[in-house]
């Protein structure tokens, strides 16, 4: 049996990225402001982590408008969902493995 710690995804080591992925797992789409309120981070910090997730193809950005204001929403990709599920499985194994 391989070590579950090795199965943990390095990308998900940050609390903020975990937060983003969790919110996107259970919602079709979430906009920037809702994510900010949910995870309680600054604009710049959130933007950096969103960029990283986007570069990994785990999330997709959708730019839209509400009236004249820009409304940027984020959705999870198939690859992102798979990677996050594997990460969750690994976490679960670590917890169970030590009982």
């Amino acid at each position, binding site marked *: 049996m391989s070590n579950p710690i090795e199965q943990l995804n390095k990308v998900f080591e940050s609390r903020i990225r975990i937060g983003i992925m*969790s919110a996107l797992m259970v919602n079709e789409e*979430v906009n920037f402001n809702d994510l900010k309120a949910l995870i309680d981070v600054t604009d710049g910090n959130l933007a950096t982590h969103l960029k990283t997730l986007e570069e990994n193809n785990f999330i997709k950005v959708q730019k839209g408008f509400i009236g004249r204001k820009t409304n940027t929403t984020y959705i999870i990709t198939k690859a992102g969902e798979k990677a996050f599920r594997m990460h969750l499985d690994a976490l679960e194994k670590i917890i169970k493995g030590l009982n």
Partner: protein
Amino acid sequence: MNNETKDTSIETLHEIRTIMERSSRFLSLSGWSGIWAGCTALVGAGIALKWLNPTFDSSHGLYYYLTEALYYSDKNILFHLIALGFSIFLIAFIGGIYFTQRKAKKDGQKLWGKASIQMIGQMATTLAIGAFMILFFIYDGAYQYVGPSCLIFYGLALINGSRYTLSDIRYLGFIEVMLGGINLFLPYYTILFWTTGFGVLHILYGIIMWNKYERKAV
């Protein structure tokens, strides 16, 4: 592996769960909203009874007024009762929003977030379909189905809405549906079922929710 990894893993999973819940459910529903809704319903039932018995005849006894009076009353009064029902619903709804808004503020949650809007949308759709059915029953003269249908569709609305809020609401929904179902077989007792379903149950539910989620915070 060591205990430290295990502890951080548990912590991470806990955080994931919290974010999933907070982003998809509106958890600031106040128990006071239920108590308020129940009390307005009881007042509404009192007014309805008064309208049904302009001349209180003691020879009939209270039992008659609680049961058969509605069944045998002049059907014109039905429209007054519908108007009364709508007014009571509005008063209950506005008061409910007030108490929930107060709790949301305390919790630092937005009242009109994604989840609460989805919850209201889900409930409104179910209630609109129910309203259509009920209007048809009135149009068709099948008055005995009006009362039970209100309870059944309200219960369904709660069951549907519960996906976006405290899951306890689901059980309240099932009980309302069951009450409506029994009421179909006992049409004379509509006022009793209404008073129980919209009045007593809401108050009980509100107290239970307050006790479960808000008491600690006080």
